[in-house]
């Protein structure tokens, strides 16, 4: 018999109760069980960064955690950055304005990496920005417009 366990997880300030198989990855739980498909899955072994979420406020790879581990914890996904499509988070707005995305696949992971980064480094140098982005792969932009977007966001958020 397949073991399932009850979990209670807060995602984007909403409380969810579900029964999950222990082997269910947190990334698949968010996408398939909760329908929050903003969290993308790329490599599924912690290299590409597309599935980055905030786990208790800190960035983490959701493909390297099991959903059962999130029991009692609080998660923010890209859907939680803003509740209003016409009123984007400053970082999202900056990505829009500076052309920080092309296909958009890596974007949610990059946003969720940069939100805590900018909180901890409100005035980053280009070097620091590139270093912060090193754990997220983008195959379209060549990163230059992402860097520009982060600089713009930092100005907006200061």
């Amino acid at each position, binding site marked *: 018999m397949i073991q399932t366990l009850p979990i209670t997880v807060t995602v984007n300030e909403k409380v969810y109760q579900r029964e999950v198989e222990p082997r269910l990855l947190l990334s698949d739980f968010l996408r398939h069980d909760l329908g929050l498909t903003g969290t993308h899955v790329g490599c*599924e072994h*912690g290299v590409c*960064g597309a599935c980055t979420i905030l786990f208790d406020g800190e960035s983490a*790879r959701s493909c390297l955690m099991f959903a059962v*581990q999130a029991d009692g914890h609080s998660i923010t996904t890209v859907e939680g950055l803003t509740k209003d499509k016409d009123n984007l988070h400053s970082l999202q707005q900056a990505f829009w304005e500076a052309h920080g995305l092309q296909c958009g696949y890596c974007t949610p992971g990059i946003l969720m990496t940069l939100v805590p980064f900018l909180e901890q480094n409100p005035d980053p140098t280009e070097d620091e920005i590139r270093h912060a982005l*090193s754990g997220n792969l983008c195959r379209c932009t060549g990163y230059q417009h992402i860097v520009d977007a982060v600089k713009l966001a930092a100005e907006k958020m200061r």
Partner: protein
Amino acid sequence: MKPAPFEYYAPHSLDQALELIRGYADDAKILAGGQSLVPAMNFRVVQPSVLVDINRVPELSYIRGDGDVLRIGAMTRERQLEFDPLIAKRTPLLAEALPFIAHPQIRNRGTIGGSLVNADPAAELPVLMLALNARLKASKVSGERWIEARDFFVGMFTTALEPDEMLVEIELPAMPTRTGWSFMEVAPRAGDYAMMGVAALITLDEKGNCMKAKLVYLNAGDGPVDAQNAASLLQDERLGDALIESAAKLASESEINPFGNIHASVDYQRHLAKVLTQKGLKQAVQRAEGTLQ
């Protein structure tokens, strides 16, 4: 992606965790930060039938000073170590090296104990434990023992732990006075596994001669490589450029044993080791000399 099915336990105390791993021993894997284990499970390279998740054992996460040593709980996250003032003060080598470990997203979850038990020859923390003369505490239901870092890493991805034992604490002696340090590595991109890396420690006597030297390498063999011959070449000497070059040559040509990979040939790894050793030793000497004034 789905790892192979497993039974899952999340004990709330160390005693419960040790009972579980005694019961399941070889069939069980301990889940710490999961930053190496979960990828391996996703690929089904590792298929434990039981997973003992120790993330809910609060007593395993701490950093505290205890006389001359630092005590670090095995489940302490790497990100926590990175910003800890006590670590920066007592073991600045460790503080300097932590940001080289993967990315912040990984360090937010990854733990010191998990990395040590994983014993990846390309990882930073095993090298640092050897360089800093750490002692590691292993516990099991029937008792505990202390293992010197140099005896802990017995081969590639292999440690001295028995199947029913768990690493619970790391004891780090403070770096001695008049000690300079350096940690350097070269990776294809920031956060990637390094092609080569070295931790260097130099302790000077009051006259500025080398009292003790330590050189430990990553990705240079089937575990952290302690280049003792190169270090003893430096012993009791004034560390000028020529001597430093000889030590770098000795370590890179005859003490390390790199395997080469898709990013770097063996020759290139040896070249990197030589250059990094020279740079690292110079930085360590400079820092040690800074403490003499």
